């Protein structure tokens, strides 16, 4: 029989705080992490806001030495790992005796570092490219850096599946533990905000537009929505074999019950196919969790303000819940954090675990008017005080990837 996989530690670095409790409080107070971008110019673009971590100071978590070799994504991941390892009780001494793996989800790792490498070569000539930047141009740079920094000697994998990267990383790590290949894995996702990805998404027409009648309106499920705002951050979970966690007396946040993944080959251009792929991922997750769809107490939606993406997700949830979607409590935290890409699924999972712990599901900031015939009637501006035992996390990519995760609460905390 497969092993059960439990969550023994979590961490989050976001524009709204650096702990699940601080993030949850901010979300429930309806505070927004979205602000005018400070770290680069958005002149000439239609969007000017993002969920930027303005105050991020890696030395708080990592000390001041040896930071130079780490780019911003690696710093986010390595700092988040410090917090998750502390939370889970995996001390330096324990890590010396037992192997911990890393499975990290990221969409770009650092397109900024790649661009800096190119820029230096173009400006100063190819002989002057930076070997330090070169080492960080690979998409698994952050996973390697965090393992080196924290002495994590188990599996070291990077999952690149666009927005779904973080959730797919959790799913893969779950399978490695279920199969008995690994006992403990630090997993989740990370993404930095940078000039290059911001301009790329802006030029591709994905970002919320100030020239729209509603202004920049990245509000999930709102009828006025006109695109998403970008964000950045990292969220990690320590996953462990349930028996091993119990043997060491670990405190347990919750359990990964199931996951599912599907791909929409139309990449959102054919509505029926997009809805079917999102629904298939959710059905696979429910099946893997060995529950019924109506056992799900709440949904952390992937919705980010995209006009079509949000609608397809809502229709898919309605299809899977077969008439009960109207009574499903829904949160969509990208209304306050922005679209954090490869980090988003993990940030939703950590946020949902905290919501389950405190019994409050955050409302959707600035949500005023749902579309006519919108199937998720419980998507609300208001926080909902609920007894949440089992939650579904959705992650829907721009590239056709769809992933869903079922998590259950444990009452250790």
């Amino acid at each position, binding site marked *: 029989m497969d092993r059960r996989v439990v969550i023994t530690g979590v961490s989050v670095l976001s524009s709204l705080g650096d702990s699940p409790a601080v993030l949850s409080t901010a979300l429930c107070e309806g505070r927004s992490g979205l602000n005018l971008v400070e770290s680069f110019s958005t002149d000439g673009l239609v969007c000017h806001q993002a969920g930027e971590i303005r105050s991020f100071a890696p030395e708080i978590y990592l000390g001041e030495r040896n930071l130079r070799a780490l780019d911003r994504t690696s710093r986010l991941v390595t700092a988040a790992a410090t917090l998750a390892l502390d939370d889970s009780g995996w001390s330096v001494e324990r890590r010396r005796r037992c192997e911990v793996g890393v499975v990290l989800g990221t969409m770009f790792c650092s397109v900024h570092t790649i661009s800096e490498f190119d820029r230096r070569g173009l400006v100063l000539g190819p002989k002057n490219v930076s070997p330090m930047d070169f080492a960080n141009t690979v998409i*698994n740079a952050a996973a*390697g850096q965090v*393992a*080196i920094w924290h002495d994590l000697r188990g599996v*070291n994998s990077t999952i690149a599946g666009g927005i779904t990267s973080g959730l797919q990383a959790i799913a893969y790590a779950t399978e490695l533990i279920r199969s008995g290949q690994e006992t403990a894995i630090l997993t989740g996702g990370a993404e930095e905000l940078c000039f290059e990805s911001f301009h790329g998404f802006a030029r591709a027409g994905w970002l919320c537009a100030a020239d729209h009648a509603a202004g920049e309106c990245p509000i999930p499920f709102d009828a006025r929505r006109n695109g998403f705002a970008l964000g950045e951050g990292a969220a990690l979970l320590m996953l462990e074999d349930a028996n091993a966690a119990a043997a060491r007396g670990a405190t347990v946040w919750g359990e990964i019950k199931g996951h599912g993944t599907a791909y929409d080959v139309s990449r959102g251009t054919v509505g029926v196919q997009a809805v079917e792929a999102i629904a298939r991922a959710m059905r696979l997750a429910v099946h893997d969790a060995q529950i019924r769809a109506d056992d799900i107490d709440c949904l952390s939606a992937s919705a980010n303000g995209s006009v079509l993406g949000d609608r397809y997700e809502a229709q898919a949830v309605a299809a899977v819940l077969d008439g009960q979607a109207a009574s499903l409590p829904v949160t969509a935290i990208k209304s306050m954090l922005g679209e954090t890409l490869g980090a988003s699924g993990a940030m939703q999972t950590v946020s949902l675990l905290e919501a389950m712990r405190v019994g409050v599901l955050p409302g959707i900031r600035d949500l005023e008017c749902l579309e006519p015939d919108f199937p998720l009637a419980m998507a609300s501006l208001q926080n909902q005080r609920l007894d949440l035992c089992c939650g579904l996390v959705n992650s829907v990519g721009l590239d056709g990837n769809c992933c869903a995760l079922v998590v259950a609460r444990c009452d250790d905390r």
Partner: protein
Amino acid sequence: MLGHTMGAASAIEAAVCALAIRHDCIPPTMHLEEPDPACDLDYVPNAARAHTVRVAMNNAYAFGGNNSSLILKKCEA
């Protein structure tokens, strides 16, 4: 013979292992004239060797510290 094909390397090697099992033939390491005494293994230099291959191990070691091994076994159907 192929150079280091980076991310593709171990997948190409896995395919070559499968062919070695299928054909009972170990492809050689070309141009291996002076084996390093510190690398003391039974290499197959410069010419393929006919050999019954029931099980093959494929190793991959990366610059960044990653290590991975895959074992392929002949199907005895």
